[in-house]
């Protein structure tokens, strides 16, 4: 549960003459998106510039400049800057990481290379292992040993260690990982080693396993520390460069990075812990979805982000995104659900739990050698892109199907910047799908959407039903360029009654950056049987966490108005090896606390597995705390209220084909001309520059005060 510390109202000390504003910048593969919000008026403006992959800082600064320009704000009036980037992920995927050395326990030199000792693909005799982040020649074994209780069995060989560091330095290593067995229980040897490394090589980037990931299981911990080291020089240089550029522009606002867990941390801290920002972009999307939904009254949502190559699905429950404790980075290829473990580098830091499926606008439709109708995971990407882009793509994609079925406007794609070729889309679908399967064009096109949707429904089942939630109790929040076109159909299939389409869904992630809180993750492995003796340990550990967290949050005192500590305990029956995360119910009498923890663990276990064991001891494994500093949100500006006549926004009508209803004459609307309280009955298409929203027959889209659309069944409205 939570406990909150109130602080007197935030010291927003900006004089009234300066228009205070916050900026969020999200760098994606093709575009760098920026969002700027005026703190006084709540007006949000969006900019889109091309990503500059060779020097991402350039695109970043261009977006900042453009944002200031369009909002007529001055650099010194920026009060907060938040950034999401794929720089760490890209370095890992492209193998362009730093030269790293490893200092480890004797006998365990190859831990990063042996990994889980499995093959990611079961039947491919020609597969090749991902190269380890630390070359074998830079991995040094040092005499030292702790036992499984953390007691020293063999003292650290400091002389040998010093010699190893000197060799690593001489061989041009930039970053050093220190990871000894059982260090999560006792950091003594890692601490000494860190001191020695810093003495011998003050310029080195150092990543200590017990600092980065103080949890048991040596491969995951060492790998997390190695990923951290491998991207540390790259991220540090990048952030230093950005900081300099910002200062040169006279922007001195606190600069934050989005973390994989959905909170932000100071850029200065991210330089030491870059492994925490690896999944910053996707995390920002879920945070955005959660925040938009909350602003229109929904706390439980499934976030659905559909772009060009994949769709990502996550869950926010009671306003909090679902987190996962571990994931893999650096996979070269997309792998289907349930396969491919070991294809990337494990990272054990909290990450927003997303299920990704190979279904995006560019996913290809094809007929396999057995005559089955398939969609994805292969994608036409943006080059050559869908057939209708007319850039040399001849195979049909989901986007082509959307065009043929009248869901996309060939004259208003990206606001009319690109004309779509309807004939090319028809030809591609006819040739590659309709003819081989003996279907007519429209049935084939509709089939492409149904088959693609089946994959997305699978992902939604994984995040909901497989984890014990009923999707009907959630709202679906759709964003990304393609999300709003598919959301209504998916919701219908899943029995979901509410679809939220935020304003500017194609750049929702950047806007989400303006809505995040400051967050610090603390974890400690404290393996103990749940008994009366364990209670003092739990209480002491959490109060130590409290102090640490308050110290960390003190750095950002100007930004937050209130803090929340989310405390939880990972427990299992002794002998199990997957833990269930049980919320800490708060301070209370020890015997009551024990009882409460026992009860909530049992309930969780019953929910997850359908049984409770009386004979088995319950074991505590990890204590976790998320310390959240809430950043006061800016009240967004509101639309004028409409008079109920949506004719003002209608651009025309066109043929829309919907399974079960056949061809319909559907109106299409300009979203920018819709006003608050307008109701758009389906069938209809609502167009804007970065996306289009489909409203099915039997549904109606209501325009909410801040401009978000809420689609509901007519019967429920």
């Amino acid at each position, binding site marked *: 549960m939570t406990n909150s510390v109130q602080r007197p109202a935030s010291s927003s000390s900006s004089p009234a003459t300066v228009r205070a504003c916050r900026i969020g910048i999200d760098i994606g593969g093709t575009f760098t998106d920026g969002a700027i919000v005026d703190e006084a008026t709540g007006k949000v403006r969006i900019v889109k510039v091309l990503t500059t992959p060779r020097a991402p800082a350039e695109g970043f600064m261009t977006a900042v400049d453009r944002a200031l320009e369009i909002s007529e704000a001055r650099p010194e009036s920026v009060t907060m800057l938040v950034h999401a980037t794929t720089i760490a992920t890209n370095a890992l995927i492209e193998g362009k990481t730093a030269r790293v050395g490893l200092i480890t326990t004797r006998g365990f030199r190859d831990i990063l290379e042996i990994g889980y000792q499995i093959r990611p693909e079961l039947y491919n005799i020609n597969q090749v292992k991902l190269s380890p982040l630390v070359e074998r020649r830079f991995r040094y074994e040092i005499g030292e040993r702790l036992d499984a209780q953390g007691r020293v069995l063999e003292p650290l060989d400091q002389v040998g260690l010093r010699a190893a560091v000197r060799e690593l330095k001489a061989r041009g290593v930039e970053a050093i990982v220190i990871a000894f067995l059982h260090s999560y229980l006792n950091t003594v040897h890692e601490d000494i080693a860190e001191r020695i490394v810093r003495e011998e090589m003050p310029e080195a980037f150092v990543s200590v396993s017990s600092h980065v990931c103080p949890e*048991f299981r040596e491969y995951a911990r060492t790998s997390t520390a190695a990923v951290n080291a491998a991207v540390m020089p790259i991220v540090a240089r990048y952030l230093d460069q950005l900081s300099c550029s910002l200062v040169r522009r006279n922007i001195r606002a606190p600069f934050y990075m989005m973390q994989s867990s959905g909170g932000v941390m100071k850029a200065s801290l991210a330089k030491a812990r870059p492994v925490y920002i690896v999944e910053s972009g996707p995390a920002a999307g879920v945070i955005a979805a959660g925040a938009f939904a909350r602003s229109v009254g929904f706390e439980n949502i499934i976030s659905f982000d559909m772009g060009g190559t994949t769709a990502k699905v996550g869950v926010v429950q009671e306003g909090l995104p679902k987190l996962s404790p571990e994931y893999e980075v650096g996979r070269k290829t997309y792998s289907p659900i349930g396969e491919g473990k070991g294809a990337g580098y494990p990272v054990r830091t909290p990450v927003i739990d997303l299920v990704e499926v190979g279904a995006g606008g560019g996913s290809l439709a094809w007929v396999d050698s057995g005559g089955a109708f398939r969609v994805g995971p292969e994608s036409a990407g943006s080059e050559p892109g869908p057939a209708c882009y007319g850039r040399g793509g001849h195979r049909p994609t989901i986007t082509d199907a959307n065009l043929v079925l009248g869901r996309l406007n060939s004259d208003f794609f990206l606001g009319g910047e690109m004309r779509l070729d309807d004939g090319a889309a028809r030809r591609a679908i006819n040739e590659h799908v309709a003819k081989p399967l003996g279907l007519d064009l429209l049935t084939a096109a509709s089939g492409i959407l149904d088959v693609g949707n089946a994959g997305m429904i699978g992902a939604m089942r994984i995040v909901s039903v497989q984890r014990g939630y009923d999707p009907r109790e959630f709202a679906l929040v759709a964003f990304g360029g393609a999300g709003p076109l598919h959301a209504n159909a998916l919701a*219908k299939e899943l029995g979901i009654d509410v679809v939220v389409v935020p304003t500017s869904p194609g750049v929702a992630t950047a806007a989400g950056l303006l809505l995040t809180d400051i967050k610090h993750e603390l974890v400690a492995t404290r393996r103990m049987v749940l008994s009366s003796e364990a209670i003092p340990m739990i209480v002491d550990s959490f109060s130590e966490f409290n102090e640490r967290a308050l110290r960390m949050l003190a750095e950002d005192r100007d930004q937050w108005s209130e803090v929340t500590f989310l405390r939880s305990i990972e427990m299992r029956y002794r002998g*199990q090896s997957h833990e269930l995360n049980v919320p800490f119910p708060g301070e209370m009498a020890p015997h009551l606390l024990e009882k409460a923890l026992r009860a909530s663990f049992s309930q969780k276990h019953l929910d997850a597995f*359908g049984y409770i064991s009386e004979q088995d001891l319950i074991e505590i494994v990890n204590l976790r705390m998320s310390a959240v500093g809430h950043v006061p949100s800016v009240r967004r500006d509101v639309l004028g209220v409409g008079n109920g006549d949506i004719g003002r926004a209608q651009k025309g009508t066109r043929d829309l084909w919907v399974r079960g209803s056949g061809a319909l004459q559907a109106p299409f609307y300009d979203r920018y001309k819709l006003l608050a309280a307008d109701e758009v009955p389906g069938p209809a298409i609502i167009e804007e520059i970065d996306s289009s929203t489909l409203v099915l027959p039997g549904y109606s889209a209501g325009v909410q005060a801040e401009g978000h659309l809420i689609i509901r069944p007519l019967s429920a409205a």
Partner: protein
Amino acid sequence: MRIQNQQPSPLIDPEISYRAAKLHEGDLRLLRRVVRSQIFNCYEKRGTPMPRAARGEFDPVRFEVIRSALLAVVEEMGATLRRAAYSTNIKTRGDFSCAFFDSECRAVVQAFAQPSHLGSLAHIVPAAIEKYGRERLQPGDALLTNDPYTGGVHLNDITLISPVFIEDKLFGYVANIAHHVDVGGSTPGSIGVSKEIFQEGIIIPPIRFMQKGNIDPNVFDIIRANIRGEREVSGDFRAQSAANRIGASRLIELADRFGVADSIYYMGQLLEYTDRRVSSNLSTFPEGRYHAQCQFDNDGNTDEPVDLSLTVEIADGIFTVNFEACPAQRPSSLNATFSQTYSAVMYVVKCLIDHDIPVNDGLYRQIRVKTRPGTITHATYPTAVAAGWEVAMHICDLIFKALSEAMPERTIACTKGIVCNLAFGGINPTSGEYFTYYETIAGGCGATAANDGMDAVQAHFQNTENAPAEEVELYYPVRILRYELIPDSEGPGKQRGGLGIRRDFLFPGWNASFSILSDRAIFPPWGLAGGQPARAAKYILDPDGKATELSSKTTITLAPNAVISIQTPGGGGYGNPHDRDPKKVSEDLRQQRISRLRAETAYGAEKGP
């Protein structure tokens, strides 16, 4: 949601089982969700007038949607089993499989991480149901079996089968198989050297293990009394029943969503589709007969090597592996059941055909496995079978060897070639509890015409994860001293084999019983097309002292503080090592994967410093 922890909580409370039995389910919670939510009833509710199947129409879209939904069911079963299980072997190492069979006992869809389960469930489920009697099955029942001679594999792999009824009609079966750490017998982990099945543990013929959704306490007590580490194994059984419960309720939802008739029609179509794809793949294989043979070190009881030979016959679109020339079974553990032999063949077939062909009954139709009962590839009562997976591993490598000239670009040199079963146990000196621990160790993969073999991975049908040293040391009185690659263990070649692994165990202050059931200490993994063999396995007692080499199949009681070093083989090389790109040789040298001497002698590198 009901809070159950105040009162004594049975596995499932009586109210649940009563109502569950009526509705053919095991769990009220799930049942409530189904009844209450009807999550996926939209197709029926939308008033599809008549099943398409009845109209004889095939809808490719519906087909694909049902196929995704079926796969989701078994994947969810697997996720449940894995999370709820107790033993490292199931949870961390993923040694289990889940499947759905139609009412005619044909496998429809299967989820698994271990290809060793590829063919085995497909044999066990029909055999068990036939033996028990399909007509005796009631809603809420579940059958349990590990009988090696009724379609089973070795005793540790225990299968739980639950019928799924819809409106009193049998819709199909959900089943899962999981490797249990111990099933009794003469050695901890039940994987020792023995002569007959009775020494290997408890034999469970197909029996009713659950009734009205509840585990039968009498049967459960008999089983638990016969195994070591009762607590852990009990948890695993509960996890198996949880997986079937989830599977059954999801299938009922699925049938509700698509309609029973349509579901059955498209399941049939899925099998036909798979068969079509297998056939079109097989039609590209070169017709002919291809023979190969090899040897095992010994059978564990005598020092005499054991022969294995097979002939692959490709003709008329049928892929046959003939084992009829294999020697008679011996009174030893080194015998495979027919299911194990079959699984090994299916694994290789799956590698040879397109990777995305689904696993179901349609996959098996064009494949034949010919054996003689009473031989090492088709064990019969009452011989022991605990090392049957070692036979299966040799079969995989040998089929590839047989095909190496006919299909050179699709074959692979010999891998580490062993499952490498290890188990240890005894009385834990700190807790006083009797415990057992089981694991297998990876090694090198064979090289192919295109690539080097992977270093330090499991081979062929085996893909079980390792247990972290920190976890092993935490739970068991053992210390892992080394876990590392073995330089120079690769089979040299134009493409080299992968490196083997060394893992050293120390048992501080107590007498552990340690069992090895493995091979390839005498006959190392072979190379292909001029590639060289890899370093053989070594099983060494006191590696840094007297260094006594142990047999590949043995059980010994260790002195306190003894160290055992397990050193697995590398993979065989492919092509002449002197043709290897010198840059690759020097890179291996630079990374200390091979020694200077090795580079010069095996690869002909120029003399260096």
